């Protein structure tokens, strides 16, 4: 159980206001997580319009950006996450069924 706790994926999605791209990205992300990381993930959405000072910490340039905080190393995926294959490879998620 403790190991499972440690395996919780920490994902952070940076957006700037509720733009179409941001909404698409969030929807896509949730879908992939439900499919592949059910119960082992945590998504934090940061709106830079509200908290601009947070952009510096994760070196955010592009919007939307998805940051995998845990497990290490940090990975970033930018764009609306429409390409599932790329997102999964980028996040290094092993599909549950494989």
């Amino acid at each position, binding site marked *: 159980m403790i190991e499972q706790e440690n395996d919780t994926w920490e994902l952070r999605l*940076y957006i*700037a206001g509720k733009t179409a*791209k941001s909404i*698409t*990205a969030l929807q*896509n992300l949730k879908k992939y997580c439900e499919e592949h990381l059910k119960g082992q993930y945590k998504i934090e959405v940061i709106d*830079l*319009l509200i908290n*601009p*000072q947070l*952009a*510096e910490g994760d*070196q*955010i*340039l*592009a*919007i*939307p*950006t998805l940051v995998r905080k845990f497990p290490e*190393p*940090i*990975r*970033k*995926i*930018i*764009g*609306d*996450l*429409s*390409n599932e294959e*790329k*997102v999964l*490879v*980028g996040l290094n998620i092993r599909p549950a069924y494989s």
Partner: protein
Amino acid sequence: MSKAKNIDTTESKPIAIPKTYTGISGFDQITGGGVPTGRPTLICGEAGCGKTLFSLEFIIRGAMEFNEPGVFIAFEEKTDELEMNVASLGFDLKKLQIDKKVRLDHIHIDRSEIEETGEYDLDGLFIRLGYAIDSIGAKRIVLDTLENLFLGLDNQAVVRAELRRLFAWLKNKGITAIITGEKGDGNYTRQGLEEYVSDCVILLDHRVINQISTRRLRVVKYRGTVHGTNEYPFLIDEDGISVLPVTSLKLEKEISSERVSSGIPSLDEMLGSKGFFKGSSILVSGTAGTGKTSISAFFADATCRRGERCIYFAFEESPKQIIRNMQSININLQKHVDNGLLQFSASRPTLHGLEMHLVVIYKMIKKFKPSVVILDPITNLVTVGSVSEVKSMLIRLIDFLQEEQVTVMFTALTLNSIINEQTDEGVSSLVDAWLLVRDIEFNGERNRGLYIMKSRGMKHSNQVREFVISNDGIDLVDVYLGKEGVLTGSARVAEVLKEHTSNALRNNALNRKDREINRKRQILEAQIANLKSEFESVEEELNKIYIEEELKNEVLEKTRKEVTELRRDKVHPQH
């Protein structure tokens, strides 16, 4: 913008482009006031040409001198690296950041940890910039080097579109921005940033010619304003960047009719008894070993004695060498160095390029404010540039010195060639006074002759003088014009001696004649006295006879009378 000033350009536009001072010495003069206010300026150049330093100085000086806070966005270097880099220039970036005058921000793009999928934009960058600008109320921003975006992101179309938006956004914010870009093949920047930044483009260059590197700056484009189009050399040293606006095309300098002594009284005498004009340029040329350095040392010495400052740029000897050598002709330069009136700057010409020498000279003069500058010798500069380059450098130097009212003395080595009279750099037409020291080889020895080839605006001697260097200093002696022509050195001395001898002989002869006349006179006078006394005795003799005669007559008369009386008495009683 608070500190931006409108610079009146020569064109009679209703509103000139407002400009923001960069604070970089020299640059603001070239551009007539700095970079355009509220617009982006592109600085491009190859790696290591000083782009980052230029832009960083723009921010730091803006904050320190013009009270305009600035944001520096670094895409390449980390903030602590930047802090360290400028600490060597004496800027305390940490303190400026604490005072909220400057904000450094490092934007790191690591391609390896970024995956792109789907559509995105660079709002994050905008937000970061916006946040940084607003947090300190920045008036200036630097993006160094923005092109890293292209390297970090795959979707070039997005990047280009976003860049266009970025520049529009910066303009909208009314912030004065500097964007740096690496030079690419054929283009000013690798990614063609110049398409986006169309107001002001500055090109920095770092060129190596003959193994000597020179940094140069050129304003490629500056919309809506006049600007210098030349390449200007610039220098990075302990004070940061200084650009040298070297070519002043105007010839409207203040001139002075004040005179300064050359330090050699007899030379002053040749120059209308007063010496050189203040702020004029003097060329001393001559073959090797003719005493050019000695003349300059005298000039330096005289300047310091008057309590004025002097800088001696030596390109051949070290200061200590010059001081020692000049002691042998009774000049103590060390004293002036200790008093802080004399400054030496000795460097091999090959230390840096010509332009750099000029910048160094320019900076030293600005700092030390001398009234006399000596360059000894300018001929050595040819080793680092072609003759025409040296000439153009000297023109600019003379221009600058005249503007500053600094008297300058150059020495030049002439080679014993057919075109002896021409100085190698052809500067003779530029200078106001030209002294030529020349070897006169005659009678088995080499002597020095000094001519004043020209001296503008004053009466000057047309005589050749013999230039004598002795333990006591320099003296100019009239050469001996004998039957055999101009005589110098020992020939002159011999001739003078010969003249002395003949003079003595002549004097002697004259004296003898005088004495003889005297003697004759004495004899004559003695004879006269003799005759006179003879005459007196004769006269006396004659007088004696005469008196006796008279006495006799008197006595006779008396006796006759008495006899007569006696007779009358006897006759009377008969009546």
